[in-house]
Every structure is written in structure tokens, then in C-alpha cells.
């Protein structure tokens, strides 16, 4: 977008502060800084984990020690010092868990209120069960009862390790193996908490499951691990949302999400990611190195990833689908917005293995300020994947002349009956569109937000109601400080 100096200034004035930047003052229990076998044993003991899980962690740790941090992404950042990170921090009251919301630390509740996710309100009004991860330990879980009636298991992963060892042993690491990649392996060694979901055969989960993440303690790595299993003929929609307080130091976030989908089942996974992106000068911000992968193991199984990525200083994230089952379907809808000095290298992988599998990729990248936004995606068709169908569309929007938008798709086909299409465009907000909006009385900021929302419409439509409103606002907020 060719902009005038005035609009830049006008916009910069509005954009000074990160709206969700505040720190809650709650005492936490920490493991010593740095990573060693002792720290892993400490985490495991704190979590009261069975021996097999500790073994699994230690094996991962040993593998991790031999691995090298990847450098193929188009990202420029200072590599984290893995010995300068706290690998465990739990709210102090964790040993004595609250029985109901009334017993929850009031200060914690206030934090949620500031974020607009009051538990009571949600419990009563919205019907969304929230498993809140506040610095790594689940503090409160609601609606568990209603879910239990249906046989749905929705709990923290540490609980699952204790209570559902059969499922955990069978599926943990079965989609993202312990030694999958540098950050996933690190996560396997040190994951502190996360969510476990099991939807039994034939059950349609009665509500949307949601976890709000918060990183709160300075210098704490957030190593979440999520495992979702959808058994035959089941359905679940899972929401993941993140906001994080203002920080000056870079924080590392290396999560792993594994999804297993069996015959005729469907999982919809939606993310709004709004970790602290760093300030206007690129200082601070979260490093978000996430491994997300779904295995469609069953016949006609389906996974749909929807993500709205607005936060983080560095994003490295490729929610993927392994389409093993015949007739399985993978979808990836993504909006990635980068502003100021943010860098995002994100996309997806669709691996077609089964027959008659199909995948859709819609990616919208918006780059403003001095940011770099990269779509990187792979569509791979194995020799036996008959009648595979893929459609990919990657559109990039550039706002300002100091940012970059890049597209790096990989297409690898080994079957003659496959049909793969890829389209990509890069453009700016046209002067005509902007003029039209301004003429109707909108200011520059509103106009840009409106146009960008239009640009992203195909993806935003995929978001569940609960997220759609928040996400639309976020698009606007994220682009503050860019140019009109």
C-alpha cells in the first residue's frame, strides 16, 4: 500500500500498546532454570506421573541432546538459550486444587475478566467447557460432569496419564513421534501440561471444547501437549485461544498437538493465537514453535484446522494432515497477520496416502510494518493414493513498503490419478477500495480493518461463533500501527 506520512503517523499514535499486556501477580512454584535429567524428573514427580511416562520423557531428552535446531525456515531470530529457561512453573495453589470456582484465586479470576473470559459467565451462559491452562497447570475445569455423561474425557494430560494409561500409551507420540523434530522432541521431554480429549464411538460432543492459554511467569517456557482422539463416528470441535501479557524477554513456546481421527469421525480444531508479538521496535515477544499434526486413520475421517495467527514475534507452525484412511478429508484455513517486526513462517502439510482423499488449503497472509510473512506448504501424493484431489489458494496482502510476503509451496505427486491445483497471488489494498471506504466516512484504520476482514472472509467463516467475533476484532487490533 502506498501510504502518506500522515496516515502512518495517525496510525502509529493509536498503536502504542498491546491491549492484553498486563501481568498477574500470583506466586508460582518453579523448577530451577535450565534443562537436565533432574529437571525432567522434577516435572514428572510434580505431576505424579507413572514410570513409563518418565522413561518416555528421558528417552526424548536424550534424543533431543543430539538434535540440531532447524534453520530452514525464513526466520531471523536469536536462538533461545535452552539453559536460561524455566521448564516448570505452577500456580502455588496447585497442590491444593480448588473444588469449585469460588475457591479459585480471585486474582486469577480477575485476569480472565480482563480478557473477557469470565468463567462464571461462560459456565452459565455460553455452555463452553473451559480448561484453563495458566502457566502450565490446569486450574479449573468446568462442565466435566455434562461431558462425563456422554462418556467424553476432557482433562489435563497429566490426569490422563494417571487415569487413562491405556489410551495414553496407545496414542501419545503416535502422530508426532518423540523424535519428530527439534522442538517437538523438546516438548516430549519437558511438557508440563495440556489437554487430553477422548470422544467415544458414536458420540457427538455436546459442546465446543475450549482451552485458553496464558503465559504469565517471566522466563517460563510454555510446553503444552494436546492429544485428541476421536473414535468411530464421533465429532468434536475444539477451540484454542491465546493471549499473553507484555514481556521484554523472548519467551519460548513449543507446543505439540496430536489428533487421531478414526472411522467416519470428524475433528474441527480452531485456534486464535495472540501471544505477545513484541513491541513496535521488535523487542520481546513470544517464540512460537509449534508442531500440530492430525492423522486421519479411519475411513472417511475428517480434520479441519482453522487458525487466526496474529501474535508472536516468531511463528513456526505447520498444522498438518496425514490422510491415511480411504476417503479422508483434510482442511486448512489460515489467516496470518504480521505487523511491526513480527515474522511468521506458517502453512500446512497434506500427505495423501489413502485412496479418494481430498484436501483444501486456503491461506491468507497479511504483512504490515516491517514484518515478514511466509506461507510454506507441502502437498504430497503417495503412489497408492488414487483419485486424490487438492486445491490450494494462497493470497498475500502487503500493507506498507517495508514488509515482505512470501509463498513457498511444495507439490510432490507420485500418482497419475491425482489432481492438484495451486494458486497464489500477492497484492496490496487498492487505492480505489480505500478511497471508497474513506469517502463513506470511515477512518483509515477502520477502512483497513474492513478490507482486511473482507480479504480473510473465506477463513473467518470457518471459525466457530465463539471465536468469530473475537477474531474479527483481533484483525483490526493487530493491524494498528500499520499503514492506512
Amino acid at each position: 500500500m502506498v501510504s502518506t506520512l500522515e496516515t502512518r503517523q495517525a496510525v502509529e499514535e493509536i498503536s502504542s500498546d498491546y491491549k492484553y499486556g498486563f501481568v498477574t501477580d500470583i506466586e508460582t512454584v518453579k523448577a530451577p532454570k535450565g534443562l537436565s535429567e533432574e529437571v525432567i524428573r522434577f516435572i514428572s514427580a510434580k505431576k505424579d506421573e507413572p514410570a513409563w511416562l518418565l522413561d518416555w520423557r528421558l528417552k526424548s531428552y536424550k534424543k533431543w541432546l543430539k538434535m540440531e535446531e532447524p534453520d530452514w525456515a525464513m526466520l531471523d531470530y536469536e536462538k533461545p538459550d535452552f539453559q536460561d529457561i524455566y521448564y516448570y512453573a505452577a500456580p502455588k495453589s496447585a497442590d491444593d486444587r480448588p473444588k469449585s470456582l469460588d475457591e479459585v484465586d480471585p486474582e486469577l479470576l480477575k485476569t480472565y475478566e480482563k480478557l473477557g473470559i469470565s468463567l462464571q459467565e461462560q459456565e452459565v451462559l455460553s455452555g463452553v467447557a473451559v480448561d484453563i491452562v495458566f502457566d502450565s497447570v490446569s486450574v479449573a475445569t468446568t462442565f466435566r460432569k455434562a461431558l462425563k455423561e456422554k462418556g467424553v474425557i476432557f482433562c489435563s494430560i497429566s490426569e490422563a496419564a494417571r487415569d487413562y494409561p491405556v489410551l495414553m500409551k496407545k496414542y501419545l507420540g503416535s502422530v508426532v513421534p518423540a523424535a519428530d523434530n527439534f522442538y517437538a522432541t523438546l516438548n516430549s521431554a519437558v511438557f508440563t501440561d495440556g489437554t487430553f480429549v477422548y470422544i467415544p464411538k458414536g458420540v457427538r460432543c455436546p459442546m465446543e471444547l475450549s482451552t485458553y492459554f496464558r503465559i504469565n511467569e517471566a522466563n517460563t517456557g510454555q510446553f503444552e501437549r494436546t492429544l485428541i482422539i476421536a473414535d468411530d463416528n464421533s465429532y468434536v470441535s475444539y477451540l484454542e485461544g491465546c493471549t499473553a501479557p507484555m514481556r521484554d524477554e523472548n519467551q519460548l513456546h513449543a507446543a505439540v498437538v496430536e489428533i487421531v481421527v478414526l472411522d467416519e469421525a470428524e475433528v474441527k480444531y480452531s485456534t486464535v493465537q495472540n501471544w505477545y508479538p513484541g513491541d513496535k521496535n521488535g523487542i520481546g515477544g513470544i517464540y512460537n514453535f509449534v508442531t500440530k499434526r492430525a492423522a486421519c486413520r479411519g475411513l472417511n475421517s475428517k480434520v479441519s484446522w482453522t487458525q487466526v495467527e496474529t501474535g508472536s514475534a516468531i511463528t513456526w507452525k505447520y498444522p498438518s494432515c496425514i490422510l491415511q484412511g480411504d476417503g479422508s478429508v483434510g482442511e486448512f484455513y489460515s489467516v496470518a497477520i504480521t505487523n511491526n517486526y513480527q515474522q511468521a513462517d506458517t502453512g500446512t502439510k497434506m500427505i495423501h496416502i489413502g485412496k479418494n482423499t481430498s484436501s483444501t488449503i486456503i491461506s491468507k497472509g497479511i504483512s504490515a510494518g516491517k514484518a515478514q510473512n511466509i506461507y510454506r506448504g507441502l502437498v504430497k501424493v503417495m503412489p497408492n493414493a488414487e483419485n486424490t484431489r487438492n486445491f490450494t489458494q494462497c493470497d498475500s496482502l502487503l500493507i506498507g513498503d517495508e514488509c515482505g510476503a512470501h509463498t513457498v509451496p511444495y507439490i510432490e505427486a507420485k500418482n497419475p490419478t491425482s489432481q492438484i491445483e495451486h494458486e497464489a497471488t500477492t497484492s496490496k489494498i487498492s487505492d480505489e477500495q480505500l478511497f471508497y471506504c474513506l469517502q463513506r466516512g470511515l477512518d483509515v484504520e477502520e477502512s483497513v480493518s474492513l478490507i482486511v476482514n473482507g480479504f480473510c472472509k473465506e477463513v473467518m467463516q470457518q471459525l466457530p461463533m465463539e471465536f468469530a467475533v473475537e477474531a474479527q476484532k483481533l484483525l483490526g487490533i493487530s493491524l494498528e500501527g500499520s499503514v492506512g
Partner: protein
Amino acid sequence: MTAKNHLGGLKFKAQFDLWGNSLPRSELDWVVKLRHESMAKFLQFGLPGPKVEAWKYTNLGQLNSGNYELITSADNVVNEMGLLENLKGSKVIFTDGFYNKASSTIESQNGVKLLSLNDYLKDFPEAAQKILNKNDDDSSLQSLNTALMTGGYVLFVDKNTTLTAPIQILHNTTTSSENKSIATKCFIDVQENSFAQIVEIFIGADEQNYWRHHVTEAIVSENAVLEIYQIQEEGKKAIHTADTHVDVGQRANFKHYSLNLGGKISRTEIKPTLKGLQANVDLRGAFLGRNGNAHDVFTHMKHLCPEGTSDQIYRGVLDKGGKSSFQGKVYVAKDAQLTNADQSNKNLILDRNAEANSKPELLIYADDVKCSHGATVGELDADALYYLKSRGLDQNAATALLVEAFVSEVYEEIKLEPLRSKYLELALNWLSKEHKK
């Protein structure tokens, strides 16, 4: 670039130590020095391995493990294998990488200087040093090419000069090419308001196992036009790598057509840099592969100045045992506003045992640009096939017709007539061979 993930290259070093002093122009100290420096530069990295991103789909392991020897001389006997008869103009023939004077005919024209690289090194040492010592190699293979070069040509076209006929450059082989590495190099300088067309043919026998490595460095100055037409019909066992680097000036125009048919491994790299305002580059090509052909087309379009336009159209057809990859990168620098860059790569897979890879890449740092790319992989349209069959064509004829249409899109706008029909004829021959199987 880091040395990590590169394969060694010590076998080439050993060959160089043995035979380096027998390479052409070893009587000139500066040439010997240049060769040694280039060899050292090559060894910093060695051959690119499959973990190097740009070589993801092509494995040069065979170059590293095979014991390719240097070729230091060739007999000057007439060899016109592969020559296009119906093309007027100068004909420059390289046999086994050496200038074949007996077979070549150079027509003189005012303002046009066309001579063999080795003559140029001897007769114009100062100018030659200037060109060769630029020290801007962007790959280790380019450095190796300088270290081992056996021959090549130099073409200068003065200001306001239009070549009266295209120049035909033919690279062929003899039985002496067995197990040899053949490195050729050429320089093309088309000055302001001039026009040049070059037809470059690479051909070899199926029996010989050789590595042909060809590097072209070209400059197209203001308002000038350079068109390069390449046909690659190397032998079945050959490894063929051809790099083209070209600087395109203000309002200059560069066109590159290619057809890849042969070779066990063929890699065509084209790297145009749009250095002037409103420069224009068109790249067109097709690759047809079967029976162990692995075609790799790698383009890197660098838009450095405003208002440039570039367009790329590549078509691949893969039959039994064929493999291809297309990697097309478009880079738009921060200052290259109002750039318009398009790219399209479509691939047809005709057989179960075939593979097509495509990696179109956009790297955009300017905001007021229009850039797009499209890539598809698929089989022939069943409806179209059905339509033709219902009109009485058999399966093979219907397939051939559709594939012909698919490929001909690449060459339809060629105005140099013998070339346009040659391209289509070669593609058709390839298709008809398919149906004999």
C-alpha cells in the same frame, strides 16, 4: 550458502591435479591461476547434496561417486550430429566440449564479434580477464565450471546492430566422451538497441556416460533483445547441467525457450536479474520424461528495478519412469515497485510409475506489485479424452492430441519459424515413441 549438506568433490580435485595443466590455454599464467582459484572456491563447498534446498529433488550423488575424468583434447574431425539444417546463419560446433573448427562456419557481420572462448583468452587477454575475474559465482558448480572449462564461445553485439540470422550453437559428443566431465562456458553481450537470437542444441549418444556442464553468462543492455532457444537431447546415461545467468537492462528484453528430452539427470537453471527500469523477461519451457529421465528446471527471477515484467510458462509431461521437478523463484526487491510477475507450471502424469514435483516460490518485498503463480499436477481430462474417442479417435491418438495441445502452448508464440516447428516436431516424436511401447 554453507558447506553443510554438500557432498565432497575431491575426485574432481584429484583429476584437476592430474590433468589441470593439460587443459586449454595452460600456457597463459592468468588462466592457470584462475583455474586454481576457482577449484579452491569449489572445494569450499563441493557438490550440492540432496539436503541443499535448491537440490531437493535432484541428487548429484552420481557425480560424487562416479570417477569422471577430465577431457583435455578432442580430434578436429567433422561432426555435425544434431545440426539444424534449415537454419541460416553462423554455426558453432563443440564436440566433446571443444570447439570443432572443421565443422563450424562463422559468418561475419559488422558490429558482431563471435569467437571461440579459447581464442578469446589468447587474443584479448585483458578483456577476457575482466569478464572471467568478476568473482561473482553464485554456486560451487559455477566455480567448478571455470576451473575445468574446455571451450565455449564469446559473442559481442555492438550498439544498434541486428543479427541478420540466428547463431546456432551445437554441443555434440563422440565415443571419447565416455566417463568424461565436459565443461563449457560462454559469454554473450548484447549492447544497446541490438537484437540477437541464439539456438543452442545439446545432443549426445545413448551409449556414453558423461557429465556436460554448460554455463552461460549474458548481458542484455538498454532496449536490446536477446532470445535463447535451447534443445536438450542428451544421451540416456548423461548428466546435463546448464546454468544461464543474465543481466537485463532498462527496457531490455530477454526470452528463453527450452525443451528437455534426454539425459538421466538434466538440470536447467535460469537466473535473470532485472536490473533496469521496465525490463522484461519471458521464460518458456517443456520437459518430457520417461524411462529414467529426471528433469529439473530451476528458475530464479530477480526483480531489482521498478516496472519490470516477467512471465514463466513451464509444462511437464511424465510417462513411465519419468520424474520432474520445477522450482521457480520470483524475488521482488523492496524498490521494484509496479512489478508484474507471473508464473505457471502444469504437469501431466501419464503413468503410475512417474513423479512430478513443483515448488513455485514468491519472495516479495515491495507492496505495489502484482505477482501470481499457479501450479497443477494431474492426468488428462477424462471428458476431453471421451470427447475425442467418441469422434472416432483411438486412445493413443486422443492422448497424443491432448498432450500435443498441452505442450504446444509453450511454443506457439515463437516467431523464429524453423524453431517453432522443430520444437513441436520433437515433442510429437516423443509422444509417438510413447505409443510404440
